[in-house]
């Protein structure tokens, strides 16, 4: 066991009794089982296929102590908080977390029509069954040490139930803000159920200070029931010394449409893992993203879509821009089980390398055990097209500005598919600004 692993186990021993749900048998069981899984496997390392390029055992030398809640009196008001600004002007339901703790006084998530909200810091023994079933489901962290740590340490989070048939009129924005100059480990666990025929859009943004090596471990479990439509947009814009470790698990039901888009801009090391399963047929799932990395950033996107039932579509569409010494990783797998006939699964990953020292590792994987399926994957990597650059410059656009336009153009495709205009524009603002902003920061 490494020193970091030992630290984590000790930290759990100390933190345990102050964690939400302590003393509730079902939660105690989930946490104990999670820490046992972690004790057995330790931090993921490069000899594990799924962690080949992101050796956490080597990278995560120091484990900061779990974040403690900031007293409310020390917090700024809603306008003073350094919340993520890209979506600030959009009509939305806003939920603010500070250092991993939900802040009701900074949020307006109360009384959204058609939504039941449960705060994990709330009264555990009164939790509805759907919350207990979700949080108590220990099978989700099988073989996933980061998710196991999340289950063990989760200090706060939100459970949202979008009620059957409800259409939520505005996006629900969960805004995770890290503050302070002391590094901490932040563990948040969210649970989302989109019931039959409901429609909702969730936005998650992550920001924090630069020069602080904090760690965010965020996990979101999402169940989309029959006929529901669900969109999630995540913007990972952590401080440039942070670790961002994220897990999302989506279960898509019959006739559902799920669209997930992650924009990765921040963190020194990030791992965005998305696993998709199906509980019904004819589902349509898109997992998309754009990563824009510079300096010595390391950004790992690892996806797995497992088609266990027939007749669903899945799309994976990722763009990565790398400058300086940045490293991008894309591991995408599509598994089609023997009974999952008429599956249509497509995957595309494209990288733009702005520097000879940048590195992209793309590892597509198709495992197909059914015969009547359509599956395809593609991976490309290249540098900026000189002909494009010449055309723009020949019209008087200076080189740096021309490059910025072309870089933003490269990642535009997945963003264009976001239907909500304000969110789409907010995303474009971020990608348009990246080229100039990165020079100041990286």
């Amino acid at each position, binding site marked *: 066991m490494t020193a970091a692993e030992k630290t984590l186990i000790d930290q759990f021993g100390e933190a345990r009794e102050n964690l939400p749900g302590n003393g509730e048998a079902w939660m105690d069981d989930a946490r104990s089982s999670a820490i046992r899984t972690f004790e057995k496997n330790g931090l993921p390392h490069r000899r594990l296929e799924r962690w080949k390029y992101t050796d956490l055992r080597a990278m995560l030398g120091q484990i900061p102590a779990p974040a403690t809640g900031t007293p409310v009196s020390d917090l700024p008001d809603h306008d003073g908080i350094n919340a993520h600004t890209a979506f600030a002007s959009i009509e939305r339901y806003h939920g603010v977390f500070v250092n991993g703790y939900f802040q009701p006084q900074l949020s307006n998530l109360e009384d959204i029509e058609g939504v039941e909200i449960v705060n994990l810091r709330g009264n555990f023994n009164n939790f509805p069954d759907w919350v207990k079933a979700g949080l108590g489901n220990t099978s989700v962290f099988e073989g996933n040490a980061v998710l196991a740590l999340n289950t063990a340490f989760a200090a706060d989070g939100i459970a949202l139930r979008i009620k059957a048939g409800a259409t939520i009129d505005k996006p629900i924005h969960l805004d995770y803000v890290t503050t302070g100059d002391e590094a901490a480990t932040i563990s948040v666990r969210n649970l989302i159920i989109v019931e039959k025929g409901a429609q909702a859009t969730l936005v998650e943004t992550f920001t924090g200070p630069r020069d602080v090596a904090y760690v965010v471990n965020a996990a979101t479990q999402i169940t989309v029931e029959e006929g529901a439509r669900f969109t999630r947009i995540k913007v990972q814009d952590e401080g440039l010394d942070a670790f961002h470790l994220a897990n999302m698990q989506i279960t898509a039901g019959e006739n559902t449409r799920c669209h997930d888009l992650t924009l990765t801009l921040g963190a020194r090391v990030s791992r965005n893992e998305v696993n998709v399963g199906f509980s019904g047929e004819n589902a349509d799932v898109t997992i998309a993203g754009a990563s824009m990395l510079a300096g010595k950033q390391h950004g790992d996107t690892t996806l797995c879509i497992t088609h266990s039932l027939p007749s669903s579509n899945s799309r994976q569409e990722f763009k990565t821009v790398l400058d300086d010494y940045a490293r991008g990783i894309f591991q995408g797998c599509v598994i089609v089980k023997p009974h999952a006939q008429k599956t249509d699964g497509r995957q595309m990953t494209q990288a733009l390398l702005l520097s000879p020292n940048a590195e992209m590792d793309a590892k597509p994987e198709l495992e197909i055990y059914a015969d009547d399926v359509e599956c395809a994957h593609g991976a490309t990597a290249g540098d900026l097209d000189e002909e494009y650059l*010449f*055309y723009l410059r020949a019209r008087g*656009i200076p*080189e740096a500005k021309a490059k910025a336009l072309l870089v933003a153009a*490269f990642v*535009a495709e997945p963003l264009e598919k976001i239907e909500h205009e304000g969110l789409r524009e907010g995303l474009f603002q971020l990608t348009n600004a990246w080229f100039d902003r990165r020079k100041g920061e990286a």
Partner: protein
Amino acid sequence: MLVIENLHAEVEGEPILRGLNLEVGTGEVHAIMGPNGSGKSTLSYILSGKEDYDITQGSITYKGDNLFDMSIDERAAAGIFLAFQYPIEIPGVAAMTFLKTALNAQRITRGEDELTTPAFMKLVKEKTAALNIRPEMLRRSINVGFSGGEKKRFEILQMALLEPSLCILDETDSGLDIDALQLVAEGVNRLRSPERSMIVITHYQRLLNHIIPDRVHVLSAGKVVRSGGKELAMELEKNGYAEYEDQKINAA
């Protein structure tokens, strides 16, 4: 406006321009004609600053300055505009964004104020109407999904917006039907002014019925082998380039 003296240029050791001389005065329209492969596009690219060519001899002076001291975008801001023979498609960059960025970048380089969005939109509306360009087209990515004629008209639209001092049109007529040719020629003629010079590169005399040149030059094997008035274009139309193809063989 433009003085080219004894210009020699090569690509990977292969000479393409071999002692080209050309002088274009302010307000003049010059046509450059010549067989395929004689170096017409190469000349236009060198003028706009494309970096694929080695200049081994000669000079280009533009408005009294050494053109080789200026970067691609500086040349554009100083008024050089090349309407490309083959306009490329750039996915992801909206045509409208591109036009606005280009116009304002040039204005900033020249020390002028940026145009406000309403002022820009008004200008675009005016220029698109004249060229029969549907405004929806500008919401698409640059040249993506444009027909051949639309691509050429989009080049002329850029020219009309940017109001350059030296317009270089590289075979803008190729691939256009008679109506499209007329539109493009009208667009070009509207831009004719005593302060603005033009180099109209074409393989056929057809375009020169609409854009009447002051001078016509024949380019062959990388140099100007003959110059004359607009009647030279007629003669070339009648006799073809056979005579000049021979010279190419001799020169090679």
